[in-house]
């Protein structure tokens, strides 16, 4: 079935924990202290440790690849981080088809914090199999 404009991508809800941030820090090799050291995070004006932007990007990437499956290929993926997110709170990934031009499909994706604020905005461009 071909995607159509306005179609919603089935949502993906993640439950990040401080443990996951440490796990991700190791897997990515990003050991910036704001992701696991509460005192350090507060000393630079943050509410506490926060999620890696790229972890949120990975969540949104999964949203797209889960939906796409083997029906097509991801060609471009862009995310912009608009707010900080803390572990221990659900992170809701959502998306909607914005544009369909032949086999090229553009999907708007976003991540919402527990209050419904869109803290990550993005776009995925996929090419559907002909």
């Amino acid at each position, binding site marked *: 079935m071909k995607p159509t404009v306005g179609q919603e991508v089935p949502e993906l809800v993640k439950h990040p924990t401080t443990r996951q941030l440490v796990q991700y820090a*190791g897997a990515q090799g990003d050991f910036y202290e704001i992701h696991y050291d509460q005192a350090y995070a507060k000393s630079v004006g943050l509410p506490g440790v926060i999620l890696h*932007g790229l972890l949120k*990007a990975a969540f949104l*990437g999964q949203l*797209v690849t889960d939906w796409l499956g083997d029906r097509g*290929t991801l*060609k471009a*993926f862009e995310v912009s*981080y608009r707010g900080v997110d803390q572990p221990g709170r659900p992170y809701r990934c959502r998306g909607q088809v914005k544009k369909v031009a032949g086999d090229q499909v553009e999907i708007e994706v976003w991540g919402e914090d527990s209050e419904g604020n869109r803290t990550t905005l993005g776009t995925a461009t996929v090419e559907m199999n002909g």
Partner: protein
Amino acid sequence: MTTAASVVERLRERIGVAAPATQSTVEAGHLKRFAEAIGDTNPRWLEEAPPTFLVALSPAAYHLEEAEEYGKGWLNGGNRFEYFEPVRVGDRVTATGRVADVYEKTGSSGNLLFIIFETEYLNQHGRTVARLRGTAIRR
């Protein structure tokens, strides 16, 4: 302010200059640990790199010491990936990063320094597999 201005000037001299290339092999164990860390259990990622994996091979923003004289912390502003070919276990990936732009902006809570990084990833066949653009912010 004079210090901040000179940091910006020094960083601007880096625009367009490529950092030394880094080479790494995509290891099955690393892919598995990465997929576990992001909580994506799709078995496809045991063989193939998920969308954001390349940042684990080479940092999205290579270390710029002088930038740390500006503000008190880093923020990631955004990332843009372009994909040309899949990356799989065993691929040897060469990443070359460069500073694409450096500029200052005045935000609601003070001045911010923006550093735009671009990284190009090539596989063992010399073909570009992906490009990444990242916006690092000092605040």
